[in-house]
């Protein structure tokens, strides 16, 4: 009996040891990954744990509204130019123009549009292709998609009522539609 208890106790200890190693690794990897410091040591550790965290889905960043919130109101529209030359304005759902119910369901579009920024240029042709596909017309197919960004900067006037600043317009990207995009 004593021998059995001793063996049982050893196996519990071994299990705890294995779980502790698992915990130590995960706590260390997650902390090094998510803290906002870029020292050479931390970068080196991140490089070591990167394949595992990306594979397992444990990568994370908690930078909501940080280091600062957006300081401009923006939205993106697309101009669809058809083969016969006529144009159509296509709009991403704008949350402020939707009902309370709809904006709760369509918020992913806001997030996607927020990501259509210069750091993610790879998304521009993707968005243009999808807009072309949404607007396909076999008799008169879209030939060009032009992504247009509108923005209004916010100036912080803490004293006094808020006055929106003027809106600006910028052509973000022009895409020549390929026949394969419409299939």
């Amino acid at each position, binding site marked *: 009996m004593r021998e059995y208890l001793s063996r049982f106790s050893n196996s519990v200890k071994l299990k705890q040891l294995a779980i502790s190693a698992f915990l130590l690794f995960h706590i260390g990897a997650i902390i090094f990954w998510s803290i906002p410091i870029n020292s050479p040591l931390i970068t080196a550790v991140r490089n070591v744990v990167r394949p595992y965290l990306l*594979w397992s*889905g444990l990568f994370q960043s908690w930078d909501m509204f*940080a280091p600062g919130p957006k300081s401009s109101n923006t939205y993106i529209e697309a101009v669809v130019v058809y083969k016969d030359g006529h144009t159509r304005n296509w709009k991403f759902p704008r949350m402020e123009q939707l009902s309370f119910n709809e904006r709760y369901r369509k918020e992913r579009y*806001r997030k996607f549009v927020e990501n259509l920024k210069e750091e993610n240029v790879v*998304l521009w042709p993707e968005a243009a292709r*999808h807009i072309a596909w949404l607007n396909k017309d076999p008799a008169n197919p879209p030939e060009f998609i032009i992504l247009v960004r509108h923005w209004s900067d916010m100036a912080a006037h*803490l004293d006094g009522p808020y006055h929106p600043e003027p809106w600006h317009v910028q052509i973000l990207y022009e895409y020549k539609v390929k026949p394969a995009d419409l299939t």
Partner: protein
Amino acid sequence: MRLQSIVDGWNQFFFAPQSPLPISLFRILYGICVIATLGLLHGDWLSWFGTHSWVSLATMRQVEPGARLNIFAIIPQNDGYIQALFWIFLAAAILLTIGLFTRVSAAAVFLCLNTIQQRDLYITHSGDTFLRVAGFFLIFAPAGAALSIDRLIRLRKGKEGADLQPKSRWATRMIQLELSLLYLTAFWWKSLGDTWVNGTALYYIIHLDEIRRFPIPQWITQSLFIKLGTWIALALEFALGTLIWIKEFRYPLLLLGLLFHLSLEYSLNVPMFQWDILSAYVLFLRPEDIVRAWSGIMKLVPSRVAVSRSL
């Protein structure tokens, strides 16, 4: 301090058995959050993840190379298969919520959640990230040990007694640590920004048209309240990331955190984010308080409506 005392503290923190009530209650709330997230996405499943999605699988692989736990990489790129994946995901989330085949369901939910987030990282918010990382540790937790169909089956088969047996809590601790880290690093990131330090951050947030939800009272937009609100948010995030581990501060902080997230849920349109985070608050509740709260609720429910009067 001796090395042994550190080892003892570690073992006490991670391995001291605890009632499975908090993690089981979390499992239910977590499952509801996943189901709600899927439901809100339902109309756009194929727009975001289908064969004609906004971001193609090929582009996503190019931007995010390397091996990933991602079912999209192995199923045929066909809208039928993709929709089937979502229905399986929904079924797993329902099973997890009711606690049937709990561990397998938890693994399936995590795998599906990871899959859809890896498929399009450009539409996820921090609430989704929290569900993903908490979901990983939930697989290892004794989440079906209470408030579950699995337990009812075990009771019926005579494999368990009526009293809940304490279980290992290391996985629960990891989810608690994730929540704590979320707040602490959110505070840390914000403290690096000028607008949070000078007290104007809230001004920009409340004037962002795209993120506004319900109207807020005019007095909140006054300079004094903007600054106070900005700094209170910072202080609260710091406290929820650190002081929550001190017993005496825990419940007051959870209450403040609850009010904080409810005010954000009212004013900001970030679907499910606040509920995803709040779901993990129950992990900080004492099991006996959960029992007491349940008894209190049951006293308010007529006896013929109540399904189970005790936990």
